[in-house]
Each structure stands twice: as C-alpha cells, then as structure tokens.
C-alpha cells in the first residue's frame, strides 16, 4: 500500500453538495475515516454525522487531518485545493472535472512549494483495497492483492481492477491521476512509491494519448524500477487533433501519439496490453 490506509483521516471539501454527500456516504460505507467536511456558509451543521466547517483552517483546528478530497464545483476547485495546502494538509485529492487549465497551472506549482501532494483534478481518487477509499470509484470491484495501479482514466481503472480482482491477483493501492492536461501527480511521481512498497509485486500503468507522461514514466522504469510493469494505452484509434473524452487526451502535432508511447514502453521493456483481459495475462506472465 502507498499514500493511504485505514488510519488515514479524511476531510471532504464540498461535503454538502450532491456529489459530496453521495460519495461521503459511499466512503463511510467503505470504512474510510471521514472526520470533517467543509462548505462555506454551512459551518456548524452536520452531514451523515460528520461535522461541517466554513473553512479548512477551522476544520484542521478541530481535527487531525491527513488528506482532503474535493468535490467543489470547477470555478472554485483550484482555490479549494490551495486552501487545503495552505492549511497544512499533506495529501489533496481533487475530483472535480472542468477546472480551468490556467487555474491548475497556478495551483499545481503553489501546492508543490507548500510541500503537499495533489492528486488530480478530474480524477477518481485513491483506493487502498479493503482499507480506505478516498475517491469515487466503485469500491466493491477492488480486492486486496499484489498489483499497484496508476491510471489517467476512471473507467479503465475500474475495468482493470475488476479484471485483476476476478483473476485472483487483486490490487494494493490504485491511484487515478486524472485526465486533464495539467495534473498534480503523474506516473513517474508514484512509481518510486510502488517500487519501495513491500506489498506491491507488479505495477499496471494505464496511460492514454496526449502529453508525454507515459514517455517520462517509461524512462524512469528503465532506469530504476525493480518490479515488473505492464502498460495500456487508451485512445489508440483516436484521430489526430481530436479531443477524446478527456481534455488532456489529444494528439498535438507529433506530441502525444500512441506510437511514441508504445515505442517508449517497448524501449523500457514494458509489455503493452491491447485489451483489459490482456492486462491480467501480462501481469500473470510477469510474476511467473
């Protein structure tokens, strides 16, 4: 396991909203320690027995908090992440989709200088199987096992986790890093953590077209990784210049092509699966 476990104490920013409330319930049902919530103007109320504060500063004054999950609507989402970082919360999971890219450029840098780790935005969050879920993924498809999973796609994460769980391999920690062009944490930031995690025996990287995060991850794997890595690239049939589902999933000129990513994976000795079922086969093969 990396980043989070059943002891992790969680704050929910935007807890009184529709998604915030629904997923707070889902997280509590999963066993996540949700200790407080924040919605400006709703301080002093409760959601599902969880106390609500007006600001993150007030929440951290009353509770020890290890991580925050943000459901704040897009116009205020980057500010919400900055508020969490300024209040000293070390891990911030930003679920919101559609955050202006320029807001993220500013927030990602500032959060980094404050020493906090930002996951997302536009991501499904983090789950350490059968321990804690700080995210929106369907928890029941993640069985505890030995594979670390990092993904730019929400749905492909669930598909892969379900397939790995059904095959009896299971997952340790799964991190959905998000589908936006500017995100807080990329593959290469998480690979060192999985490399040192005794429970994780192999890592699955689910990338997609757009950007160069997969290429950078491949270079890191080639230089440092001690464990087998299996890859998958989404959007391989997408036409150039056409945005496919995610804001970050776009081929611009020669940057972000599936060919470039496949070549980088091949050079790093990372086998690439063509289907979800093949991910399972390749992990089994890698683990002997």
């Amino acid at each position, binding site marked *: 396991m990396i980043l989070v476990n059943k002891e992790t104490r969680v704050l929910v920013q935007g807890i009184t909203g529709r998604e915030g409330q*629904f*997923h707070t319930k889902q997280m509590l049902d999963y066993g996540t320690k949700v200790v407080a919530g924040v919605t400006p103007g709703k301080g002093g109320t409760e959601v599902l027995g969880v106390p609500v504060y007006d600001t993150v500063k007030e929440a951290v004054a009353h509770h020890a908090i290890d991580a925050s999950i943000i459901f704040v609507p897009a116009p205020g989402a980057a500010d919400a992440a900055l508020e969490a970082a300024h209040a000293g919360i070390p891990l911030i999971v930003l679920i919101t989709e559609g955050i202006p890219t320029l807001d993220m450029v500013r927030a990602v840098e500032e959060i980094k200088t404050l020493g906090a780790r930002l996951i997302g935005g536009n991501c*499904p969050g983090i789950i350490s199987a059968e321990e804690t879920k700080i995210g*929106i993924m*369907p928890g029941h498809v993640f069985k505890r096992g030995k594979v670390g999973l990092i993904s730019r796609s*929400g*749905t492909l994460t*669930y*598909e892969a986790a379900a397939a790995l769980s059904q095959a009896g391999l299971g997952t340790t920690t799964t991190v959905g890093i998000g589908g936006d062009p500017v995100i807080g944490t990329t593959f290469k930031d998480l690979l060192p953590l999985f490399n040192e995690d005794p429970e994780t025996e192999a890592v699955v990287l689910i990338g997609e077209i757009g950007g160069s995060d997969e290429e950078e991850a491949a270079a890191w794997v080639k230089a440092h990784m001690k464990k087998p890595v299996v890859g998958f690239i989404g959007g391989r049939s997408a036409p150039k210049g056409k945005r496919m589902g995610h804001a970050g999933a776009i081929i611009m000129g020669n940057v972000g092509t599936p060919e470039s990513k496949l070549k980088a994976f091949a050079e790093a000795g990372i086998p690439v699966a063509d*289907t979800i079922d093949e991910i399972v086969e390749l992990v089994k093969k890698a683990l002997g």
Partner: protein
Amino acid sequence: MVYNALRVVLKDPDVKGIFINIFGGITRADEVAKGVLRALEEGLLTKPVVMRVAGTAEEEAKKLLEGKPIYMYPTSIEAAKAIVAMVGGAA
C-alpha cells in the same frame, strides 16, 4: 443526459443500433438506466439497444432494466460482439 444523447444519436438515419457501456464511478448506473427507460417509454428506441452496466449503483440499474426490451451483457467485450452481430458489421 443519457436521454438527450439517445435523442441526438437516433436522429441519424444511418444508426442501426446503440451500444451503451457504463462502468460507473461518479456516474451512477441507475441514472443511465433511467435515461434509457425514459427513451423507451416515449417510444424513441426503434433500434436495438445493447447495454453493459457495472460499477456504482449497478444493482439498482439492473433492477430497473429487468424484463425490458434491452439486450444486457455482463462484459463490454460480449456486449460489443453482440451489437456488431446485430447491425451486421464486421466482427
């Protein structure tokens, strides 16, 4: 949302069938099912609909669609093969 998407897609006379594949996270499978049901009740679904639903609120979605004239498959691969066979495309 799903209802509106179905209306737009069904305006295209070249559409021979509809494939809906959902593994819900933030998207709730029961809300997808409700959109399909509304289109069905309004008589919009004149073409075969093949669905695979999983994830958040999967059970609620399956209950809503039980006994309805929708082709349901447990995996995306099986569902994809079924719709291809129905519309007469190359598998």
